């Protein structure tokens, strides 16, 4: 079947032959490689996208269910050539190592700061508890978002 949705503001269509996930369609058919596949079980958050403004693991969403919706991936959180404040904050404090978790953290943090521009440390951690990072130990990620939240940095 052919499905259509808006990806980062652009109309796209994709052919879905088998019960493919939204993540598979993004990566393999639409060439949007920003969202990562690290577990395909909803356990790591690397594939996080906004589906009609709601934060989801795209590996758990059937592509067919994205029909007619607005999908925002890491590639779409900031205009071309610019960084979202969330990305800037992570860049400044060294919150990126291998970077494989980074797109997921960016999308999850964009969602958090849209809902709550001044989260507490605890709110930051709870919002990001579904995102696994194997490299940083999360310290720099927490510092980045505490700074962005305008809180005193430890």
């Amino acid at each position: 079947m052919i499905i259509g949705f808006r990806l980062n503001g652009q109309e796209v269509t994709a052919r879905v032959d088998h019960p493919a996930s939204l993540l598979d369609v993004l990566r393999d058919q639409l060439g949007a490689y920003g969202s990562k596949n690290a577990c395909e079980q909803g356990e790591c958050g690397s594939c996080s996208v906004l589906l009609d403004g709601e934060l989801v693991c795209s590996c758990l969403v059937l592509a067919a269910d994205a029909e007619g919706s607005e999908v925002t991936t890491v590639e779409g959180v900031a205009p071309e050539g610019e960084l979202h404040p969330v990305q800037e904050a992570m860049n400044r404090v060294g919150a990126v190592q291998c970077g494989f978790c980074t797109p997921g953290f960016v999308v999850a943090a964009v969602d958090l700061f849209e809902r709550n521009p001044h989260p507490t440390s605890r709110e930051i951690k709870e919002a990001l508890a579904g995102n696994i990072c194997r490299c940083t130990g999360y310290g720099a990620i927490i510092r980045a978002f505490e700074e962005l939240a305008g809180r005193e940095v430890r």
Partner: protein
Amino acid sequence: MTTRTGRRSVQGGIGESTIRPDGVPKLRGEFMYAQDMHVEGMLWGATTRSPHPHARIVSIDVGPALAIGGVHAVLTHDDIPGPGLFGLEHPDQPVLAGDVVRYWGEPVAIVAAEDEDTARRAAEAVVVEYEELEPLVDAEEADARDEVFRRMKIRRGDQEARGSVVVEGYYEVGMQDQAPLGTEAGLAVPDGNGGVDLYATSQFVHVDQQQVVEALGLRPEQVRAHPVGIGGAFGAREDVNLHIHLCLLALYTGRPVKMVYHRGESFTGHVHRHPARMWYRHEADENGRLVRVEAKILVDGGAYASTTAAVLANACYFAVGPYKCDSVAVDGVGARTNNPPCGAMRGFGAVQVCFAYESQMDRLASALGMDPLELRRRNALATGDRLATTGQVIDTPLPVVEVIDSLAAMPLLVDEPGSGGDLPGGSGLTTEPRHVRRGVGYALSIKNLGFSEGFDDYAQARVRLSPEGAIVETAAIEVGQGLVNVLAQIARTTLGVSRAEVRHVDTSRIDSAGSTSASRQTQLSGGATHEAARRLRQRILEHYRADDLDDEGVWRGDTLVAAWDDLVRDGWEETVTFRHPPTEPPDENGQGKMHADFAVAGHRAVVDVDPELGLVRVLRVDTAQDVGKALNPESIRGQIEGGILQGVGLAVMEELVLDRGRIRNATFTDYLLPTILDAPDVEAILIEQEGSWGPFGAKGVGEPPTISSTPAVVAAIRDATGKELNRVPVRPQDIALEEEVAR
């Protein structure tokens, strides 16, 4: 004539926390990982794996797989044009199993098809008839049957020496997985002339290239391995896995072939940290000075050699820790079983023994009624001393006492249990604050830096000048640690220019940088970059009889004698192969100068425990670490925080659970990884003591954070609970129930 207005200082040199150049592309989702590569006309590969840990292959029928539309190739052992064996230390592992499978998940056939789904279906359609054999899954039984990869014997000093205070213990370490977030992935592209270009997850492209060449009977110039973007490594990328398969499929089909392991396949497709069993006896005098240490160390290497010999050696060489002792006996065994193969993981043998010797030091302190840090201070190893095991005189800075003093001086920054809602059970209200018990524990560690035992360990780097500034060319893999930062920083400071960047080149264009492991690249590739930049600057200055080089060009006094563009046009470049001080293999008693350098670290953990439910919350892990010279403090902090959390993972949650050779929890649902809610606060003191042979005196920093963080956390749990806890990971039932792992 240009007149100089005054010398600018170099921006972005060593000592600065420069922003990494690959940060923005990674943040935007534009960075190209091995998983993201695609070329026109490529096929997808997949692997048929053994469902048995040990079996004879009776027959393989590829017919049903080949009959599926879109399948281009189904290859087995018989299709390999060459010896078909690989291995990091010696080639004992079949590219595809022939007569026998020796571990669960061993590759038996490989497939190439039009798309990923078809390839996976075809891999499942291969019909393999097995005759199951009894798997050997117990390392002690393997030892008894002499199924071993290596035995180690270390004897140093008077073997009759005896102390008045004796503690004995038995310890176990479970099988940890590196679990890098990016799984194994790669693309092989045939060149049309019988050769192939390989782009795959790696820590060491030259050794991948060499193994492809040898396994497939190719000529070295036919295979080029390219560094590519990689989502973490931690040791899991040191061994070959899909590399030879990809090249074989690409050469056979004449088409580019891509393969990506899914998470479950990744757990079976790479080596793990060796599980270990360790028996220890420490003897001290009444003042707490170590008189004798005896240890028996048994690590399970699994079915194939990988790096078991080197991991075992490391475990034995560091079996006493950063302490002085003149009477030592260590026996080590690297067992061969039908368990999953084990190899490199961050800490490489030093992790397992550190849990044991630090547990012993705490037991000894309690037997002596002495403060655990005071006991460690009394025995602390220092520059000029001999390593207790090998007798090697330590001739680089070794700030063990400084690490202890720094840890002791750090304030204990923790609130009351339960304040802020951070209880062992999380926010699920499972734990009652009044039941929470707090504990504090310490541990120290020592680890070698670079490769040991006489291995010719070197790294090549090239520095050349381009319109964009200085370029550092290297095949050293960036796994996430920040090598792209630090090599550029070294080049900037050494050349005196502020524009420098790192470019990765393939195996045909530069000699080996060695492995991105053993905490070695800052020292080795950094050393090569430093020396190349130093010589290049010197040659340029001599050529122009000048006295300075900067972003504008070459200066003689206030006169610019050659502009940067002129230098670029003249093609100035310098290539250097850097070696660390030579090491040697051990003698028959395990004695000798086996190591080029050492690093020490110490950790202090603070935990809250709910003893009824067996739940642990690690509140803080503070650390002092010997770094030589901090070239990029923020990168080091990132290594420290990341390494500590992997150590915390081993302490309280991470273990691959085996059932007669089969991994029971090969998913992120069942293999528990620390989340942001599990991450302790970390305060880190970097101890700088110059004198090491690394560039500007720098030491490697990647592994020490992972080594002593584990025993520090367990010591803190013991402090809170009074339990013996002789096995990691510590599970809830180990705390809440009575039984110990008794031996």
